[in-house]
């Protein structure tokens, strides 16, 4: 009985058109245990029934790095700004993978949860949020691996001896946070759009691949010809990846204006993503 007296004033009002930008923080907090469980499920289900288990989170970027080193480094001879190619690619992939994995997993939110969404109410934001957090765990594993490689190269090879993170390393967590916000924003946009147009899900893979090549991962910003620099402005990920390199290696090309632009774009995508997603979630059960 004590419980129900506590909730005497508890009221849920159901009405049409609950504004554009209302995030139900109270509900999100009430469902915090669900968020944790979803994070756990997301993280575990990625490698359940695989032999190597969580090691895949580490092996995957390493394999990609080997391919990049051979194709773009050894064959195409694309500059890496004097950073050892393996470190250069690993660093770029570290940031990029976090972004792309959140988006590719999260974009299908409404599809993979349509059965659930049409039967049970819970704050719909918990699903993409859980993807972003679970992928952050994978990011942490990858970051530790990267740190190991960095240390090895710095101590054992002459060309990496001059690299040092310096004081800018303190910005790294902020950059990770920005990737989180940006990837969540793009995920919300994508999943809301794919809920209505399933065709977009097929395009998703292609968009992400294109986006990767438009981001300075296999090449440094310093090698982008002047007439293409506007692309760096338009792509918030470019500045983030290049800033990653400055923070970690102390080398890279970042204009403060780019940082302002990147952060502003991230905020815009994030907020509009929440709006669009919440508009979609209200009636998605009618479509599915």
């Amino acid at each position, binding site marked *: 009985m004590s419980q129900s007296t506590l*909730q005497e004033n508890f009221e849920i*009002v159901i009405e049409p058109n609950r504004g554009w930008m209302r995030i139900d923080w109270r509900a999100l907090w009430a469902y915090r*245990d669900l968020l944790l469980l979803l994070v756990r499920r997301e993280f575990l289900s990625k490698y*359940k029934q695989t032999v190597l288990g969580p090691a895949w989170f580490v092996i995957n970027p390493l394999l990609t790095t080997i391919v990049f080193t051979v194709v773009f480094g050894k064959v195409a001879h694309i500059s890496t700004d004097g950073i050892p190619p393996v470190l250069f690619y690993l660093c770029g992939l570290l940031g990029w993978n976090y972004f792309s994995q959140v988006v590719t997993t999260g974009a299908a939110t409404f599809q993979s949860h349509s059965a*659930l969404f049409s*039967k*049970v*109410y819970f704050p719909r934001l918990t699903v993409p949020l859980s993807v972003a957090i679970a992928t952050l765990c994978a990011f942490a594993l990858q970051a530790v691996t990267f740190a190991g490689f960095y240390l090895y190269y710095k101590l054992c090879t002459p060309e990496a001896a001059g690299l040092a993170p310096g004081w800018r390393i303190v910005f790294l967590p902020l950059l990770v946070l920005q990737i989180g916000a940006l990837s969540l924003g793009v995920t919300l946009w994508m999943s809301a759009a794919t809920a209505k147009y399933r065709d*977009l899900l097929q395009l998703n893979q292609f968009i992400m691949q294109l986006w990767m090549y438009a981001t300075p991962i296999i090449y440094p910003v310093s090698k982008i010809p002047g007439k293409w620099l506007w692309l760096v402005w338009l792509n918030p990920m470019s500045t983030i990846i290049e800033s990653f390199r400055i923070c970690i290696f102390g080398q890279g090309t970042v204009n403060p204006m780019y940082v302002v632009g990147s952060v502003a774009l991230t905020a815009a995508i994030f907020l509009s993503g929440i709006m669009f997603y919440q508009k979609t979630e209200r009636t998605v059960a009618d479509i599915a």
Partner: protein
Amino acid sequence: MEKPIVEVEKLSKLYRLGDYGASSLRESLGSWWTSVRGKTASTTSHHAKEMLIASNRIGPTPNSFWSLKDVSFNVRRGEVIGILGRNGAGKSTLLKILSRITEPTEGRAVLRGRVVSLLEVGTGFHPELTGRENVFLNGAILGMTRAETARKFDEIVEFAEVGAFLDTPVKRYSSGMYVRLAFAVAAHLEPEILMVDEVLAVGDAAFQKKCLGKMSEVRNEHGRTVFFVSHNMGAIRSLCESAILIESGRLVMHDTPQNVITHYLSSTIAGQDEMDGQVFWNADTEPAPGTDDLFLRGIKLKGISGATQSMFEADQAINIEIHYQVAARLRGVRFKLSILTQDGDVAFVATDHSFQPTTLAPGIYRSVCAIPGGLLNRREYVVGISCDIPGERMLIAQGEYLGFTVSGAGNQSSNYPEAWPGAVCPRIDWNVQQLDTDEFAALPSPTRLVAAAR
């Protein structure tokens, strides 16, 4: 005075017919292209649909209809309220709005308590996770904190009878275990408002009984408010204190369960004027009862002449034909045909289980149930149909589709035109004759007979 725990005011929900099924980019681009070229977007594909919407459900824009219109009612704390209505009347839409799965188009509802809705058992179960993990996940999805679930954990496991399989992934569970565990989680939550939609239709009889028991316990001991949608008239009568009837998206009655049941079943009988003795679904224009794998095409009531009709002589046989389409290979399908009286009592239930071929290949089928003459009473009946694969899944949830009237002088019960009690009135043979001798005269005395009987 205490405020009602649920207040529903003029709740309405508009659906656009084009919204059925996910639209493809091509369709949207197509209609955009036609509008750009200055033509109005083609409506031919939806034209047929428009015709079929009951006139009182047509919405303000073309191709839209009111799934729910101006529904208002209040529910007191601790009340168990039954929701009755034909399939497609708007019951599920009402529950979906009240459980916040979809938004109303108009109106407002206030819920003064935590809501848990069980619109389908086992949603949110993840096949790779173990039973134990799923209990916590499902509890969280339904709004419980981890601590609450942990406190209830032993009770849930005991109720579901899955103790030995707790650490097995649920994908290896039998469907019975799956359903038991899912219901157990939801039933042991402690919401102020519980919404239950047809979930009892799954699971075996023993488990259904257990679920009904749990629900009356929830009502009696915990004083919770329960919304109960079911076609099980007996359960509605015994569990609910009041009931509402929804017809064509409108609330037409809010009364005692018995009155609502009687009204509902009478309207099923009265509602078929032109299409006497048959009902059918046009698969292109309205969702037929069933799933993608198996769905109804139509039902016909035929008399001895072979014509469809809804009035029958008591001594004549009635053939009830169920036409259905099978779209995938199915094993072990069973149709259940219930004959209900107008008061909602089950006269009898017949099944074609032992008459069905074990495997149904895709195609169109007809199951005919021949009710012999001289079985039914002189009164009105309602035909209910459901279809399932026992112990596995429900294909067509129970629904009442047709009514018919049995009358006539051929009635075996009595030649007087009086109302005769009983759900059925089978022809029982009697033999009346005059005797020459009194067979009891030889017995010692009636008093001794009575003593011996003691």
